[in-house]
């Protein structure tokens, strides 16, 4: 009796949410894991939101939403308060997003970097950041004097390992003596830890530093130490103008605008998107003139070839650390293999933390 009463009450509340939905203007909600001023991951998603807003669509964002128990409430509140499309922009929102999606079949959900699409109103999207890493590897291989590249890594998930491998393969192509040293910091954003990791790598002889973390601390450390570095997620050039050779930029804006318009016009469909240089979801920052005109030209050509598909970041032969073949000569790695990548290629030092 009581149970039924509550069930009706709850459905009534949900229905209230829907009725607001259909009458109010079309609105898009964004859930961010960090502050909009992190100059990295969240900053770029916020830029994407600004583009949606500029396209004449109303948006709302909630920043610094912890990936714990709070995420579900925030997502649910956005759905309840009349948002028709909700972007949840961190991996940790995967389960809460799917859970809320079940209760709001008329609201569309887009989850970044996840793999679960349990309901027809959930799409996932991510970028082929590894294509940018290939360009970084090419540049690093040419620029290093010590033949040692320092890599600040966050978590040993496929995306990060893919980046390490893509970079190492490209660097080996132009400089066979290259070594990749890795420091795992086990955080996405911790300026203190990232700066320490950068310094540790520099002390070990690395004269090119790159990062798969979001703060500007590593590039600033590199600038002070007088070694090369690369920006991550956004164009970090102004934080280390001498040291930064280029940045990998996550440009979510075109995708966000396209999906928002599709949802508004009723043409939105569930999909799993993995866009790269070709579609512009991965873009490169300005190249440092210290690279020299020849290298800039080379890299720009490689960027075009990666975008057109003429060159693939993972073209065989590729060997793992023990010398076993991963991708045969003349073949390229398929998306399935890329999505689950969990071993280093030859030339990377150390073991993947277990």
């Amino acid at each position: 009796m009581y149970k039924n009463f509550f069930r009706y009450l709850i459905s009534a509340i949900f229905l209230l949410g829907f009725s607001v939905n259909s009458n109010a203007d079309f609105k898009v909600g964004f859930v961010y894991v960090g502050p909009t001023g992190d100059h990295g991951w969240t900053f770029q998603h916020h830029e994407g939101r600004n583009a949606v807003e500029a396209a004449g669509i109303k948006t709302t964002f909630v920043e610094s939403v912890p990936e714990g128990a709070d995420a579900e409430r925030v997502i649910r509140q956005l759905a309840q308060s009349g948002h028709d499309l909700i972007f949840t922009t961190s991996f940790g929102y995967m389960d809460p997003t799917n859970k809320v999606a079940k209760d709001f079949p008329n609201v569309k959900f887009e989850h970044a970097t996840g793999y679960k699409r349990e309901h027809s109103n959930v799409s996932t999207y991510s970028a082929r950041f590894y294509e940018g890493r290939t360009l970084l590897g090419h540049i690093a291989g040419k620029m290093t004097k010590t033949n040692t590249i320092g890599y600040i890594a966050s978590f040993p998930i496929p995306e990060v390992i893919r980046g390490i491998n893509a970079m190492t393969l490209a660097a080996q192509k132009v400089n066979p003596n290259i070594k990749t040293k890795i420091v795992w910091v086990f955080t996405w954003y911790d300026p203190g830890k990232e700066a320490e990791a950068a310094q540790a790598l520099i002390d070990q002889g690395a004269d090119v530093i790159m990062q798969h973390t979001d703060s500007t601390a590593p590039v600033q450390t590199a600038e002070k130490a007088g070694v090369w570095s690369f920006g991550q997620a956004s164009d970090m050039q102004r934080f280390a103008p001498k040291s930064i050779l280029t940045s990998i930029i996550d440009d979510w804006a075109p995708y966000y605008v396209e999906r928002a318009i599709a949802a508004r016009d009723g043409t939105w469909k569930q999909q799993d998107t993995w866009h790269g240089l070709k579609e512009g979801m991965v873009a490169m920052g300005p190249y440092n003139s210290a690279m020299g005109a020849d290298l800039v030209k080379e890299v720009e050509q490689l960027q075009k070839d990666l975008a057109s598909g003429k060159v693939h970041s993972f073209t065989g032969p590729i060997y793992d650390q023990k010398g076993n073949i991963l991708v045969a000569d003349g073949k390229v790695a398929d998306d399935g293999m890329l999505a689950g990548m969990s071993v280093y290629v030859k030339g990377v030092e150390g073991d993947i933390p277990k």
Partner: protein
Amino acid sequence: MIKIEKRNDVPMALYFFTPFIAIILTILGGGIIFYILGFNPIEALKFYFITPISNLYGFSELLLKATPLCLIAIGLSFCFKSNNWNIGAEGQLTFGAIVGGGVALLFYNQEGFYILPLVIIAGAIGGMIFALIPAILKTYFNTNEILVSLMLVYVSKLLLDYLVVGPWSNPEGFNFPETRQFSDSSRMPLLFEGLRIHAGIFLALAAVMLSWFILYKTYLGFQIKVSGLSLKTAKYAGFKGKTMILVVFMISGACAGLAGVGEITGPIGQLHRMISPDYGFTAIIVAFLGRLNPFGIIFASLVVALTYLGAETAQIFLQIPKYTGQVFQGMILFFLLASDYLLFFKVKILNLKKNELRH
């Protein structure tokens, strides 16, 4: 000249009334901040304090959020009442969650009514053991419990990081820093379908009752209160100080551990790195706002939980920065301490003649 004098006759009624004054001042102060930020203060306050709990779902979320705060604050009240400054409830929560979560992972593919109680007890014991570290160091080595308990927070968080990245990470989880999902048998039963409020709230209520009983009806409670008022008196009366310190830390740790287990077996359902948005620290505000009184703490935990929810709602509807939630929590504590000061001390402005000053 300003002179500060202690008041001798502070009425108890006023003592329990000042938290309300602090809350009212916080709301007024918040209104002013919203006004300066360019928002309509009335509208902003409405989204902050009324909208979040204007429906059943919102109210259930308030209770969900208040549950860990209440549990931890109840535990802390034992420590604070007896002059033991346990600042590390966040660490005890984390360690409790680690131990409880470990047991839950042990049974990840099993069903059984006995699993959840085991997980809960393991969590309480975990928190208890972790709180015993600063307590033992204090009683036998004279260390400062504030420092030790605070530093242990980082120890437990790093341990959790290590476990979810390494040995306990989900084998099918592509190395993402999280464990497997717990089986349904180690999840807190939900009270209502469609809502997240779970049986953990009964743990909090039981803790409230039990703490009231211990504090006001037992010899231990008497010892705790006397030690809090005057350590010298307690010694003179022959109370066993060391045992009492150990006991209050154990109670405090057990409560924090229960809060941790409630979170991971309730809304979260697994271990990962973000199991608590600093509940252990926020609960310190809750304990003081509740006047270290079990029933006051219930009320205080609801108020502070509302500042979390309000910060989210205000951001969704008005795009007010989320950090105003922390500003509100800070203001509550500030106004409470300020009104306490004025309650216990008189500020006298003395009119002195000019020549007296020169002299």
